[in-house]
C-alpha cells in the first residue's frame, strides 16, 4: 500500500513538472516571467505569447488527454481480456478509425468535425469487427483471450489493406492524411479536442465508478458474482467505455501507438490491480509519457518536427522489447503471465 501511494504521488508531482517543461522549453529565458503571466489570459501580445497560448497549451492538453485516456483504456482492456497484449492498437480500434477517416476524406470530402466523428465510429466498428471475428471463429472460451488478439490482428490487416489502397488511389491528397495515420499531436486539432474530449472524460469517470466491482471481477468472476456484482453488465460497460475512450483519442490526433500497450505494463507491477489506484496511476503515467514523446518530437530536430506517433512507436517498441525480456523471458516467468 505504501509503495502504491508513493508511486501515485510521485506521478502526480512529476506530471505538472513535465507539462511545464513542455510548455516553456525553447523560449528565451528572459521572456519567461512575462509568459507565465500571459498564461491565464487569452489574448496574445507577442508572437511568443501566441505560441504559448495557441500552440503549446492546446498541444499539452491534447497530449495529456490522449496519453491519459489511452493508457487507462489499455489498462482496462488488458485486465478484462486477461491478455497482456490487448490494447487499442491490437484490437482493431486504430485500424478502424484510420479506415473510416481516410474513406471519409477521399470518398466523401468530409470536413474536420465530421472526420473526427467518422474516426470515432470507425474505432467502434473496428472493435466490434474483432469481436465478431472472434465469435465467428468459434473460440469464445479461450481462457487466454488469444483469439481476440488474433482476430484483432486479422481485422487490423483487413482494414489497413483498404486504407492503403485508398491512399494509393489519390497521390495528391495522400500527404495530408499520412501524418494523421501515423499519429500526430497537432494543435491544429484543438477543435477536435473540444468536440470529442467529453467522450473520454465520461469514459474515465464511468471506469472510476466501476473500479471497485471491476477489481472484484479481475480477482475471480465467480467470487465477484457471489458478492452481488453483475458481471456481464459491469464487464460490458467497462469495455464499451474503454473502446469509446480510446476511439475519442484516435479521433483527435490519429492512433498514437504503444501508449495503451506499454504504460499498463509499467504501472501494474508498481501499483497492482486495485483499479481505484491503478487507473489514476495509469492516467498520470500515460499523460506523462505522451507529453514527453511530444516534447521529443517537437524539439529533437528543430526547426523540423517529428510526429509524436513515430516517437512513441520507435521508443515504445524498444521499451516493449525490454518489458518482454524482463517479464516473459526470465526463468521465473515460464508458466504464463497475467
Amino acid at each position, binding site marked *: 500500500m505504501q509503495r502504491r501511494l508513493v508511486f501515485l504521488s510521485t506521478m502526480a508531482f512529476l506530471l505538472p513538472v513535465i507539462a511545464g517543461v513542455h510548455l516553456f522549453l525553447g523560449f528565451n529565458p528572459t521572456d519567461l516571467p512575462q509568459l507565465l503571466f500571459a498564461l491565464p489570459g487569452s489574448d496574445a501580445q507577442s508572437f511568443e505569447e501566441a505560441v504559448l497560448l495557441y500552440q503549446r497549451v492546446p498541444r499539452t492538453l491534447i497530449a495529456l488527454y490522449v496519453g491519459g485516456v489511452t493508457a487507462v483504456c489499455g489498462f482496462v482492456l488488458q485486465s478484462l481480456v486477461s491478455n497482456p497484449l490487448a490494447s487499442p492498437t491490437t484490437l482493431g480500434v486504430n485500424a478502424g478509425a484510420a479506415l473510416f477517416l481516410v474513406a471519409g476524406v477521399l470518398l466523401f470530402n468530409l470536413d474536420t468535425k465530421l472526420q473526427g466523428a467518422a474516426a470515432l465510429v470507425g474505432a467502434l466498428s473496428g472493435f466490434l469487427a474483432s469481436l465478431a471475428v472472434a465469435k465467428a*471463429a468459434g473460440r469464445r472460451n479461450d481462457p487466454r483471450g488469444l483469439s481476440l488478439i488474433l482476430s484483432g490482428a486479422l481485422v487490423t*490487416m483487413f482494414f489497413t489493406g483498404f486504407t492503403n489502397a485508398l491512399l494509393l488511389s489519390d497521390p495528391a491528397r495522400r*500527404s495530408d492524411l*499520412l501524418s494523421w495515420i501515423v499519429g500526430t499531436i497537432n494543435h491544429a486539432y484543438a477543435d477536435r479536442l473540444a468536440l470529442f474530449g467529453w467522450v473520454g472524460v465520461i469514459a474515465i469517470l464511468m471506469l472510476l465508478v466501476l473500479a471497485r466491482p471491476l477489481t472484484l471481477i479481475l480477482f475471480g468472476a465467480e467470487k465477484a458474482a457471489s458478492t452481488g456484482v453483475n458481471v456481464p453488465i459491469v464487464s460490458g460497460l467497462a469495455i464499451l467505455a474503454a473502446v469509446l475512450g480510446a476511439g475519442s483519442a484516435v479521433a483527435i490526433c490519429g492512433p498514437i501507438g504503444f501508449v495503451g500497450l506499454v504504460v499498463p505494463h509499467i504501472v501494474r507491477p508498481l501499483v497492482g490491480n486495485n483499479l481505484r489506484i491503478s487507473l489514476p496511476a495509469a492516467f498520470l503515467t500515460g499523460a506523462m509519457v505522451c507529453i514527453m514523446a511530444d516534447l521529443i518530437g517537437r524539439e529533437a530536430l528543430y526547426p523540423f518536427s517529428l*510526429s509524436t506517433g513515430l516517437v512513441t512507436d520507435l521508443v515504445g517498441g524498444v521499451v516493449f522489447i525490454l518489458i518482454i*525480456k524482463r517479464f*516473459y523471458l526470465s526463468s521465473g*516467468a515460464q508458466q504464463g503471465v497475467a
Partner: protein
Amino acid sequence: MIRRGTATDGLGILRFKNGFQIKISNLVAGLGLAMAAVLLAVYSLQIGLTKTGISDFLAIFVGAELSDAKVYALIDVRLPRILVGFMVGWAVALSGAVLQSLARNPLADPGLFGFSQGSMIMIMLLLIVVPLAPKSLVALAAVAGGLCVAGLLLWLVGGGRSSGLAIVLMGIAVETVLSSFGTLLILYLPPETSLALSEWLAGSLFQANWSLIAAFLPLFFLSLAGILIAGRALPAYDLGNEMAMALGEPVARSQPMLLLFAVVLSAAAVTAVGPLMFLGILAPHIAAFLSPATGRARLVLSGLTGGILVVAADTLTRGVAVGLPMPLGLSLTIIGVPLFIIALRLQALRKFQSH
C-alpha cells in the same frame, strides 16, 4: 507393392515397399490441392483484357497461329504471373510452417516476426541509394535484412528456454519497431519516392517475367529438397528443444539451418513480390484444417495452399474492374481472412463434435 493399413491413431495409411508410408487423408488433400491449383491456373489464364485462355494456350503447342496480342497476354503477362505467384505463395507458406514448428506457436509467421520487415527495409534502403540495382543485389539485400532480424530475435530471446508465447511477443515487438522505421521513410521522403515505396509495399506481381521465374526456380527446387530433409525433423521440434534432442535430433546444428531456410524463403518472396503479410499463418492453418498433418506432409500441404491463395489473389486483382486499386496484398487479405475464419470455425466445431 502398395498396401493399405491403419496407423496407430486409427486413420488409414498407405505403406510402400521401401517402408515409406503416407496417410490417406494427406494424400487425398495433397492431390486435391494440386488439382485445385491447376484448375485455378487454367481459370486465371483467361482473366484479362485480351480474350484468350487455355485453349489458345494449348493451340500454341500444336503450332497454330495466334495474334500477337494473344501470345503476349498469355506468355508474357499471365503465365509468368501465375507461376511466380504460386512459387511465392509456396515459399512464404513453407517459411511460416517451419517457423511455427521452431517457435512452437501457431502464430509464427515471417511477417509477424519481422523477417519480412527486415528484408523490406534493407531493400528500401538499397533502392533509395541505388535505384537501378540488379535483381540479384536486391535479393541479397533482402536475405541480409532477414538474417539481421533473425539474429536480433535470437539474441533477444536467448537460449532455447523461452516459451512459444514469449518468442511471438518478442517477434511482434521487433516487427513493430521495424515497420515504424518503414513508416518514417514513407512519411518523410519526397512525395514521388514515398508513393513508389507505398506501391511496392502493397505487393505486386507486375515484375513477374520469365527471367524472374528462372531466378526463382533453383530456390523452388531447393525448397523441395529442404522439405525432404527437414520435414522429418520438424515433428520433433514441435515437442520442444529438449524433447527433440532426446529424440536424437541434432538441435544445435539443425535449428540454425531451419531458421536460415525459413529466412531465405521469405526474403526471396519479398524480393519478387513485396511483403505478403500473414500468409505464413493463413496457409498452414487452412492446410491443417483440410488435413491435419505433421512433418513433410504438412510442409507440402501448406506450400500448395499458399500457392493457391496467391494465385487466387492475383486472379481477383486482375479480374476486378473497379477504379479503386486492388493491390496483391489487399486481395490476398480479402480472400485469406474469410477462409481463415471459416477454417477456425469448422475446426472448433470439429473439436466440439469429437468430444
